[in-house]
């Protein structure tokens, strides 16, 4: 993979003049226009904005689920523009840990098997997988729930499993999309505190939300409106 030095060292995300245009029967839509964004190692950044603002598009691009139409996107100094679908999938596996609003665990698998899955795709050895499962489950406080099924657990617990799964391949960043959207306030706070803890231990987190209460946990907030990054704020 081609490595390019972005202007600053320690950049996990570097976006320059990035745009995304949807051009289909429904017409032309510029979902993102001239986006410039840097996320550094150890950052906890919130991308905020109302629905339809383009924040989902931005999240999909950061998560390597979609490609920009124009501009530069370096993830860990790798230019993703030239990568094949397969390389993107491998980069996604190794560099990004997803946390979704609706948890997205596989219902047929138990907790340990769900957490194991990214490592299976990364072809890690069995011993390594076993050790890592214990490690990350302990980190999210579910060490005793390895054999449980997700459909017998509370929403907060399920989201913890999802965070554990996101951590298994030691990703460059955790991409959390409305992680508290399906949880009550108290559980939501617990999840946000867990993310905050992980951030303090050095994990880079990109949080996508429309909820200012949730956004407060981030060190840095980026506002998206009509496809433009309108506002950046560094919290105290």
């Amino acid at each position, binding site marked *: 993979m081609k490595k390019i030095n972005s202007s600053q060292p320690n950049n996990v995300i570097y976006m320059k003049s990035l745009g995304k245009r949807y051009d289909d029967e429904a017409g032309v839509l510029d979902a993102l226009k001239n986006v410039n964004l840097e996320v550094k190692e150890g950052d906890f950044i919130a991308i905020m904005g109302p629905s339809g603002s383009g924040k989902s598009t931005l999240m999909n691009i950061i998560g390597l689920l979609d490609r920009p139409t124009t501009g530069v996107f370096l993830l860990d100094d790798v230019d993703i523009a030239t990568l094949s679908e*397969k390389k993107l*999938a491998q980069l996604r596996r190794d560099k990004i840990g997803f946390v979704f609003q609706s948890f997205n665990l596989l219902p047929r698998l138990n907790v340990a098997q769900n957490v194991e899955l990214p490592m299976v*795709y990364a072809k890690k050895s069995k011993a390594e997988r076993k050790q890592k499962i214990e490690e990350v489950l302990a980190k999210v406080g579910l060490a005793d729930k390895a054999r449980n099924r997700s459909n017998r657990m509370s929403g907060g617990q399920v989201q913890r499993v999802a965070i554990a799964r996101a951590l298994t391949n030691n990703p460059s960043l955790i991409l959390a999309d409305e992680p508290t959207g399906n949880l009550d306030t108290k559980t939501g706070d617990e999840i946000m505190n867990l993310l905050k803890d992980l951030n303090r231990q050095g994990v880079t987190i990109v949080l996508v939300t429309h909820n200012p209460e949730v956004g407060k946990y981030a060190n840095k907030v980026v506002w998206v409106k009509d496809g433009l990054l309108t506002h950046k704020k560094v919290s105290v």
Partner: protein
Amino acid sequence: MILQNIKMALISIKSAKMRSFLTMLGIIIGVFAVLVMIGIGDGVKSQVSGQISSLGSNLLTVTSGQIGGGSSTAKNGQQQKGGGGFNFAGTVGTSTLTQQDVTTIEQTKNVIATAPFNVVSSNVTYQQLSTSSPFVAGTTPNYSSIRQLKIENGEFFTTNNNSSSAKVAVLGADTKQNLFGETDAVGKEIGIRGQAFTVVGVIKKSDTGSGFGASSDDIVYIPINTANKITNSNQIFRILVQVNDPKNITSTQEVIKTELKANHSGQEDFSVLTQEDLLSTFNTILDLLTAFVVAIASISLLVGGIGIMNIMLVTVSERTREIGIRKAIGATSSNILSQFLIEAVILSVMGGLLGLGLSYIAGLLVKKFAGITPVFSLKALVLALGVSLLVGVVFGVAPAIKAARKRPIQALKAL
């Protein structure tokens, strides 16, 4: 990775047991039907070849008409119909063999014995009982020694009986049982074509059993001269020839052919067959039949494959979200492809294994109730598993490709 895929496939097959079973059903039935048909075919084959080879490898059979030793079986199939020994009753037309041919063969080098053989169509009666099932055969005492018939009771008729056209008969075990039950038959009188024959002997039941329901023990032997007298003809349907050594069988076969051709003014309107010729004639017919039935049974394998494809396509649609999740956490398209392909193959192979088990059970039932021992060869087993593997791959590819092509963003939005 493959191991993980197998594990995943088993989990998802287990989570929908009923559906998985119904999906497999087509393959189960297909493999079952194919294996049972091949098994019965092979079983009958080995039974009959056992019977034919029990006649001895140093035997030649001279028969009227041209039977191409297995090559032209279709048009002569009728003549070869019947399994146990030799069902002469199936022969049609007037025989071209004569007493002169018998004499010629007797004088041929390496020939130890000959036995001409004739058929009398007649009911056999005893007191009030009358049966049409036995096969009434006119022959000479040599027949008994060539076929190595074992006498249960009394004796086979003698050369004197033949030359004096004596009205004596030797009964096969089944005929004796049918007419006399447990009572002794020797010395009793039976009726053939309205004439009284004295029973002089009873043959032991043969251990090769029956083939195709036609018992080789339901038979009545009478002297051939007597037979010619009561039928008013001197036709000879078959001549059994015993050669001194199996090594000389082919050369003697050729010599007899040449000599008989001279007798028949150059016409080869007869056949000289070895036991192997008979066997291959029979096998060709049976193979053809088996292949036909197996071809029909194979259609259900095709239908089973389509069933698997159908269900896998539904499964892929239902599990769109799962595919999206897997892709988001790092599965490549080929990971997804192999996952669904392996699932289809496992469904198919499990079906194949179940079909295999069922056909084995059916084999035991057939053995118990139909008296045929089906033979399950390794070849058939490998064929069944190979075919179900192939079906899984062929019909699993399309759904797996569909799964692999799903875009993660759209897939994640699915319910």
